[in-house]
């Protein structure tokens, strides 16, 4: 059953991107769900890197979003199948440590991407810092509203490390601005509809809202719809840099978004794995800078995924 699921997913997702040489490295890329646009871009980046390097990539995605047990059984499967290396996004930063240890014990090199695992041995970590993204997004928005006024924070999934880090970044940005008041901080579960309804409700309780800090772009879009529906105006910022958010930034509906470097995370993850296998130098960790995307630079970030090349590893990590 699992085998079938995996093969099906591989067939559906693989985009058979790498008609590589038969002796090329076989990289297993493990992401955590099929719905988040971020992971879609990570997978696209991984494929692009494999294309460039002549390696092949097989994708492993739990059919149940962010399922820890499913990732665990995928790892057990991999221990048997022995790919050259694994590029791994853990569904939980702690719960999958035993899985990483099994891969370590099997002698399969592992590169950690996106969510930093709290244990296990990795060749390298590639990702963005959620706190930095929250801080950068927060600072940008508060500057845009003139460093004073009422702001609303829309949190992600409660108890989720990404949400907590991003919100902590927001709050630290708020602390730098004495004139800014957080009138409400409520959860939108990282999803559009809950964020939309929560914002509709909050607008009733707070007649003056100048800015909204949303912990991801889908929620930011829900917030924008709520504002427009209520005929209210406030500057909205999100995090991730999804295509939808870039369009909203360009048309002025969103103030900005912070770049999660999703495509590049996939690129660098696979590249680091292949370089390690080829005994080339790999950095211990590469954390992307928290770049802010606003109207002035949006076009630079709006690159079609198809045919997008991976950058040169050495030039990037230098």
């Amino acid at each position, binding site marked *: 059953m699992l085998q079938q699921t995996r093969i099906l997913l591989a067939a*559906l*997702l693989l985009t058979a991107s790498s008609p590589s040489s038969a002796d090329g490295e076989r990289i297993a890329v493990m992401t955590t769900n*099929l*719905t*988040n*646009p971020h*992971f*879609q*871009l990570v*997978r696209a980046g991984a494929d692009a890197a494999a294309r460039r390097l002549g390696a092949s990539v097989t994708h492993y995605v739990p*059919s149940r*979003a962010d399922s820890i047990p499913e990732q665990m059984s995928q790892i057990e499967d991999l221990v048997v199948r022995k790919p050259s290396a694994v590029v791994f996004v853990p569904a939980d930063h702690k719960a999958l440590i035993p899985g990483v240890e099994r891969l370590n014990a099997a002698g399969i090199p592992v590169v950690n991407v996106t969510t930093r695992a709290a244990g296990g041995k990795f060749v390298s970590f590639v990702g963005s810092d959620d706190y930095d993204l929250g801080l950068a997004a927060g600072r940008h928005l508060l500057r845009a509203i003139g460093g004073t006024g009422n702001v609303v924070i829309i*949190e992600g999934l*409660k*108890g989720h490390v990404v949400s907590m880090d991003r919100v902590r970044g927001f709050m630290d940005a708020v602390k730098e601005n004495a004139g800014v008041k957080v*009138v*409400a*901080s*409520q*959860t939108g*579960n990282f*999803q*559009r*509809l*809950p964020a*939309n*309804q*929560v914002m*509709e*409700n*909050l*607008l*009733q*309780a*707070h007649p003056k809202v100048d800015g909204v800090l949303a912990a991801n772009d*889908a929620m930011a*879009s*829900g917030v924008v*719809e709520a504002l427009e*529906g*209520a005929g209210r105006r406030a500057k909205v910022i999100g995090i991730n840099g*999804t*295509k*939808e958010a870039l*369009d909203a930034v360009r048309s002025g509906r969103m103030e900005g978004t912070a770049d999660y470097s999703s495509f590049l995370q996939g690129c660098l993850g696979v590249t680091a794995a292949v370089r390690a296998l080829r005994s080339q130098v790999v950095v211990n960790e590469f954390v992307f800078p928290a770049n802010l995307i606003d109207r002035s630079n949006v076009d630079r970030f709006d690159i079609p995924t198809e045919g997008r090349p991976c950058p040169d590893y050495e030039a990037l990590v230098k």
Partner: protein
Amino acid sequence: MTTTSTAGQDKARVGVSLVLSRELVPLLYRLLVAALLCSTLALLTESFLTAGNAVNVLRQTSLLFLMATGLTLVVLTGGLDLSVGANVGLSACLAAIALKATGSPFAGIIVGLCTGLAVGLANGLLVTYLRMPAFIATYGMLWFLQGVTFTVMAGETVHGFPSSFRIIGSGFLFGVPVPVFIMLAFLALGTLLTRYTTLGQQIYAIGANREAARLSGIPVRSRIILAYVLSGGTAGLASLVFLARLNSAEGDIGEPLTLPAIAAVLIGGTSLFGGVGTVFGTLMGALVLTLVLNGMNLLSIQTNWQPLVTGVIIIVAVFIDTVARRRGAV
């Protein structure tokens, strides 16, 4: 369960007046729950009793209620539809793609509705002709639909629809949101159907005692299939209203909706064993759930406390309902 095996036929035979008296008391209790919640919130925050907030609450209620109306019929037959959220998700995504590809609201609406209806029909066939338990059949359907949705969407978001389409989710008529009119229409249709048509009475009879219903000549299978098809249809319609409200569709759009829809039906007093319940009760259930979120947001209750508050209110609401059911049966 206080309903006897003859309740279905009783209703069919004795007619409207007895049914009303039997259900009037629970109905009043259900109104009482909503009224209690409203007055508490009105006391706690002055932003509750405002026209703007009323518009919000009604619009959000209508989104939930639309999904739950058809589901009510299914539950009345003694069935269940766990795939209702996933159905909304797939219908919304396919409708979004059709809208985007053709630019025609009509095409989007047709695709959304047909997807919903087709899924409902599939559920109905699984449950009747293949004799599968509704819970498992629709649970399987949930996964199937999610798989199709994720594959079709591939992690992408489809967004930006013509304003002529967005009216059904975001538009206003005489200062009242369009979805609220759709909700009222469905409340009226659902009530008429369950209360005053043979089909409605047959649905109650099947839920009360399927064997007795079959023996009395009711075409049980086709009626059950019809209930699932109607449930699929309201899911399809709800998907369009969601789409028009949010102006975008993504793979997980239906995910947060299934449990609230089922909860709305059950909080509204429809029995999970079938045969007992009303569409109006479902409306009250949807209203209570919406009020809980609305109240927590208005009062800025901390995120970590919200599940606890939600749980307490649901349990209290169901407790009041249980008391009402006992009174009503006497």
